[in-house]
C-alpha cells in the first residue's frame, strides 16, 4: 500500500486516541491526528483547543488553534481561561489526551520548545511554550510528535519547556505536578513509550524497513529496544478517511 511517512505518523497517533477521550490539539500534524481519530477510530472523541473551543465540527482543517474554522459548531465558545481551567481541573483534565510537538526531547519525555543554546543568548529561538507547558503539566497523558535526529533526542535539554517525567519516577510528584506525563512518542522512524516503573523512554516499534539500531543512531541517549515490534501499516480505510475526510486539499499532509 502506498502512504507517506506523514500519513503513517498521523495514523499512529490517531490510533492512540480512544473513544470519549478529550483531545487537546496543537497546530499541524497534531490537529490532523485528532481529526483522523475522530473520523476513523474514535468517533466520540472530543476535539478541544486551548483557545477555548470545545467539540468543534471541523468541516475544514484549521491552520492554527485560533483558526476561525475551530469556532464553528462547537459546544461552547469561551476563551483561554475556560480552556486551561478545563485542563487544570482534575475532573476534566484527567480525561484529556494532549498531542504535542517540540524541538527537543529527553529520556523522560521532557520537551524543549523555547531555545537552543543559552536562554539569555540563544543560538535558535523557537515559539516558546504556548499552551504546551500547561498541557504537559495538567493532562493525564500526552502523545508527542518528534523527528528522529540526534540534536532532537537530547541527553540534556537546552531548556525544559514542558514537563514529562522530569528526573524519573516520582519526579512530577516531587515538583508538585499532578500525575500524568507522556504516553507515546511518534517519530518518523518508529514509536516510543515510557516504562511505567523507570519512566524511561523505550522503543515500542519500528516503522516498516527501519531497525532499532537505525533509531538509536539518531538519538543522543540510549533506550531499550528489546520490546520492539513492527508497527502495523495504515489500512486502506484509514488512508482513505484521512485523505478524503480530514485533509482533502493536502494542507498538512
Amino acid at each position, binding site marked *: 500500500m502506498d502512504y507517506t511517512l506523514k500519513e503513517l505518523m498521523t495514523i499512529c497517533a490517531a490510533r492512540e486516541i480512544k473513544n470519549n477521550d478529550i483531545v487537546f490539539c496543537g497546530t*499541524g500534524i497534531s490537529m490532523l491526528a485528532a481529526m483522523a481519530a475522530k473520523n476513523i477510530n474514535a468517533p466520540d472523541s472530543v476535539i478541544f483547543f486551548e483557545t477555548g473551543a470545545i467539540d468543534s465540527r471541523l468541516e475544514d482543517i484549521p491552520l492554527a488553534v485560533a483558526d476561525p474554522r475551530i469556532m464553528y459548531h462547537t459546544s461552547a465558545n469561551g476563551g483561554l481561561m475556560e480552556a486551561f481551567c478545563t485542563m487544570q481541573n*482534575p475532573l476534566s483534565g484527567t480525561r484529556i489526551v494532549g498531542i504535542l510537538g517540540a524541538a527537543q526531547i529527553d529520556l523522560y519525555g521532557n520537551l524543549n520548545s523555547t531555545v537552543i543554546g543559552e536562554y539569555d543568548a540563544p543560538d535558535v529561538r523557537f515559539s516558546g511554550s504556548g499552551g504546551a507547558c500547561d498541557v504537559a503539566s495538567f493532562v493525564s497523558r500526552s502523545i508527542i510528535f518528534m523527528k528522529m535526529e540526534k540534536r532532537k533526542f537530547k541527553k540534556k535539554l537546552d531548556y525544559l519547556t514542558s514537563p514529562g517525567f522530569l528526573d524519573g519516577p516520582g519526579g512530577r510528584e516531587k515538583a508538585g505536578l499532578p500525575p500524568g506525563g507522556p504516553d507515546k512518542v511518534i517519530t518518523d522512524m518508529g514509536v516510543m513509550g515510557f516504562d511505567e516503573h523507570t519512566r524511561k523512554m523505550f522503543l515500542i516499534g519500528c516503522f516498516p524497513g527501519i531497525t532499532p539500531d537505525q533509531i538509536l543512531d539518531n538519538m543522543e541517549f540510549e533506550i531499550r529496544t528489546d520490546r520492539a515490534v513492527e508497527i502495523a501499516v495504515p489500512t486502506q480505510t484509514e488512508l482513505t478517511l484521512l485523505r478524503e475526510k480530514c485533509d482533502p486539499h493536502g494542507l498538512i499532509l
Partner: protein
Amino acid sequence: MKPEDNKVMRLQDAVEKYVTDGCHLSIGGFTLNRNPMAAVYEIIRQKIKDLHVYAHSNGQGVDELIGGGCVSRLEIAYGGTGKFMSTCIRFKKAVQEQTIIVEDYSNFQMTLRFLAGAMGIAFLPTRSSLGTDIINKWGFPKAFRKQHDRIPNQKLVVMDNPFDGWCDTKKVVLVPAITPDVTIIHVQMADFRGNCRIEGLTFADVEQAKAAKRLVITCEELLDDDYLKTDPDRNQIPFIHADAVVKVPFGAYPTACFKYYDYDATYMKAYARAAKNDDAYQQYLAAYIFDCPTHTHLLDKVGRRRVESILADRNRGYAKHLDRK
C-alpha cells in the same frame, strides 16, 4: 451625551494619544485571528519606540510590532502564527540578535496574569510549569527587575499550599498581575460608549481589556445607539472600561475576524517570505505600512479581489472556499 461618552475617535488620534514611547502595551487576538492589525500598523507608522509588550500568543501583531522596530521588551508565551510561521520570524531574529529582551511564560500563565490585572489582585496561582525552566530561567534578572518599578520584583514564586494538601496539591506557582498602560483589541461590534461584542472565541481579550489603564477598541461595526444593549448576554466588555472606540472595517486584516472575514493566506505567506530577509522586509514595511497613510490604503493596495476572497460565509463564520494552499 455625557463626557465619557465621547469615545469615538480616529485611529491616528487614538494611537497618538494612548500609545506613547516606552509604554506598556498589550494587544488582543491569537496568532492569526482578531489581532488589532490596523492599530499595529498605525503604531509602526507613528514610529512608536521602546514598547514593553505583553502577549500570550498574539502572533502576527507582535511579529509586526517587533519587525517595525517598536519593541524593546516582550513578555510572551508563544511567538508563532500556526502554519504560516511556526515561529514568528522577526521575533526569532530579534531574540537571537538580542535586540529585544524576552521573558517566557506559558499561555495559561499569561492569561492568569491578565486576569489578575483585571481582577485587581497582585497574583494568581497555578500548578503549571512546576519543575520546568519557565521557573528556573528568568529573562528579566532580579537586578533588572529592581531597576524597573513597572516590572514585578519576581518572575514568579513557587509556594507550598497553605491548605495542607487540599485538592491533592502540595505546591503552586504564583504569577504576578499585568496592568498594561494600554490594551488594544479588535472586536466585531462596539457602540459609541465602548460596549463590546466579540463573536466566536474571546481568547484573553476580555481580561486584557479590563487589566489595562486605557482601552482602545477598534471594531468592524460601530453602533451610534443602544442596539447592543438589546442583547446584553452577547456583550463581554461594558463601556466603563473603554477609553477610545474606532471604527476600522477589516481592522484585523490580514488576520481573521470570525463571522466577518478569514485570514488572508496569501498575505501571510508573502509576509513570512519577506520577514526572512532584511531587505525584503524593509520593502514590505515601506510598501504596506509607511506608504499607506491608513488601513484603507493598505486594503486598496492588496486589492478588492483578495479582500472579497476572504469574506466569511455568514453561517460558518469563515471563508469556506478560500484557497489556503
